[in-house]
């Protein structure tokens, strides 16, 4: 059995990220009457609570995401904390310019919850492979991508305490496993070392942390001691933690449920290229769109299609170690 760090308490059963988000929103909204639920005809985490306890703080904008984003900016300018929930392609993708001009320029305190990464039943339109990459280039925006319900709750709590625009990407399909214990520390901008390793490090975000943990089992059978770094904050990246693990193992594999262009992999690569050039491999969606596909424990066509299973990560880790050894010999 691999030994994980003390805040890790793995339970091998499906865990829902949205549950953690909902819990944190309800707890915060009950205490703070400046939190406003902005609806885009796409439901809301904690909708029933708002309907019952604070209907005046529910603002239904209809299917008009551009207007919703800028109205939220106006609310934030007056000291409210609007949360906009929808699919990522809609609340952020559809209102990209509005967010840039009317929210980020003035750092207004607007929060976005956008769902789904590269996969889901809904298909090419809704599976936002480019979500992280397109948002990482936006100045003033903090991006969070929690891995399980506990981290989601902590991240949502931190998001609502932070003053400024934040995007929280939640992945609900497929459900990850439960990974973190309730007392795990969470700070925006801080990575968490899930497991120390000697031979290589997997840097994972969101759902892919589940696959990374499964990959550890496979790699251990081959006698490899591989570490895991969990990156919940995709922007700003925790440069120090990334450089530290690169120095320790000298072989880095990044794993993300989204396009490798502009995503976690590119972010890590940029940090390492500037500070400590290290052999690395990016596991993620190559430059393509997604499609429909059911993902269940029995069936994972899309994961196979994109090469995002634990097995694929394990292969990449071995490749990366081989790369490192080859470089050593050359020296």
């Amino acid at each position: 059995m691999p030994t994980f760090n003390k805040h890790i308490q793995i339970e091998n059963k499906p865990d829902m990220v949205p549950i953690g988000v909902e819990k944190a929103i309800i707890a915060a909204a009950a205490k703070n009457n400046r939190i406003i639920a902005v609806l885009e005809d796409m439901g809301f985490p904690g909708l029933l609570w708002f309907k019952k306890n604070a209907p005046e703080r529910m603002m239904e904008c209809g299917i008009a995401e551009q207007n919703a984003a800028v109205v939220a900016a106006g609310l934030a300018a007056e000291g409210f904390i609007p949360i906009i929930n929808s699919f990522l392609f809609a609340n952020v993708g559809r209102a990209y310019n509005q967010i840039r001009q009317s929210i980020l320029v003035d750092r207004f305190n607007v929060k976005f919850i956008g769902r789904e990464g590269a996969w889901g039943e809904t298909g090419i339109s809704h599976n936002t492979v480019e979500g992280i990459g397109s948002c990482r280039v936006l100045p003033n925006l903090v991006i969070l991508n929690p891995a399980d319900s506990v981290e989601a709750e902590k991240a949502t709590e931190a998001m609502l305490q932070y003053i400024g625009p934040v995007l929280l990407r939640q992945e609900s399909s497929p459900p990850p496993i439960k990974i973190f214990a309730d007392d795990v520390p969470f700070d925006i901008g801080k990575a968490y070392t899930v497991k120390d390793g000697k031979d290589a490090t997997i840097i994972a975000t969101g759902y892919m942390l589940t696959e990374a943990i499964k990959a550890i089992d496979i790699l251990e059978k081959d006698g490899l001691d591989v570490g895991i770094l969990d990156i919940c904050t995709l922007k700003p990246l925790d440069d120090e933690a990334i450089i530290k693990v690169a120095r320790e193992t000298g072989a880095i594999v990044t794993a993300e449920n989204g396009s490798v262009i502009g995503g976690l992999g590119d972010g890590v690569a940029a940090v390492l290229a500037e500070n400590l050039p290290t052999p690395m491999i990016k596991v993620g969606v190559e430059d393509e769109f997604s499609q429909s596909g059911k993902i269940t424990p029995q069936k994972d066509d899309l994961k196979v299609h994109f090469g995002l299973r634990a097995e694929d990560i394990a292969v990449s880790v071995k490749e990366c170690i081989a790369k490192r050894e080859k470089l050593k010999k050359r020296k």
Partner: protein
Amino acid sequence: MAHDEKLIRDLENRANQLRNNCFTIFGSTQMGHCGGTMSIIEIITGLYFHHIKFDPKNCDWPERDRVVLSKAHCCEAIYAALVELGVYPKEMLETYYCYGSPFQGHADRWCTPGIDYSGGSLGQGLSFAVGMAYAEKLKSAITDINAGQGGFLQRYIVRYDPLYRSYCILGDGECHEGMVWEAAMFAAKYKLDNLIAIVDYNKFSLDGPTNEVMNLEPFVDKWKAFGWWVTEIDGHDIRQIVDALDLTTRLYGDYRPKCIIAHTVKGHGIPSWERDHMHLGRGEVIMKGIKEGREKYADI
């Protein structure tokens, strides 16, 4: 309520002063969005020097009326007004377009106290003004809830005047943007009678006549159909402007957002700019107009 002749004459003099300030701004860089700026001079004068609650010594006053300039490329007119109000010294007019200046090329709330909205990407200002108007309703509603009195409707009973009003100045060209109409629907749905949109209908956008670029007509009927109270005025007649603005105040409580469609002329008052429907003037062209303007509106 008829406004007396003296007030109107004072405001007309103010408008001339604003024009002269704008000439200084344009002259300093030999560049500027002179056409659209000249068409809103009287509207800005009516707002800042007669109608709105604004404290030049305390630009962040929580109860100030909000002015959202959605056509933010015409921020020169507001800069001219802020200088006239004493928020900024007159010498600063010449720092327009300069690095570090509060007078940026497009209105920027972050570096220019007195500006409520950072614009530039057209069509978004109305939504922002709507957000601020909605926030005013919420602030009152939340206060009422804390007092154990209930929601939105309660506040119409307890309050006869809003904490503040939200004004939005739109260009006609930017009404081509779909989200202007999303905002219009939203404002009517939430009965934002504390919101006043003023459309600078100068009939020209960059590529040509606005209604040839994309027809807006029947413009008044469109706003009416969206559930707004609408009036049409001559946007260069100070008396009509202040009458219309003051009327919107008296109509507060009718559950309707207000729209004033101000018929204006692009480049108003400057013959060469009027003739060319000047949008962005540069070099000799703008300097020629400034010369004409300086002669016509000589310093008072």
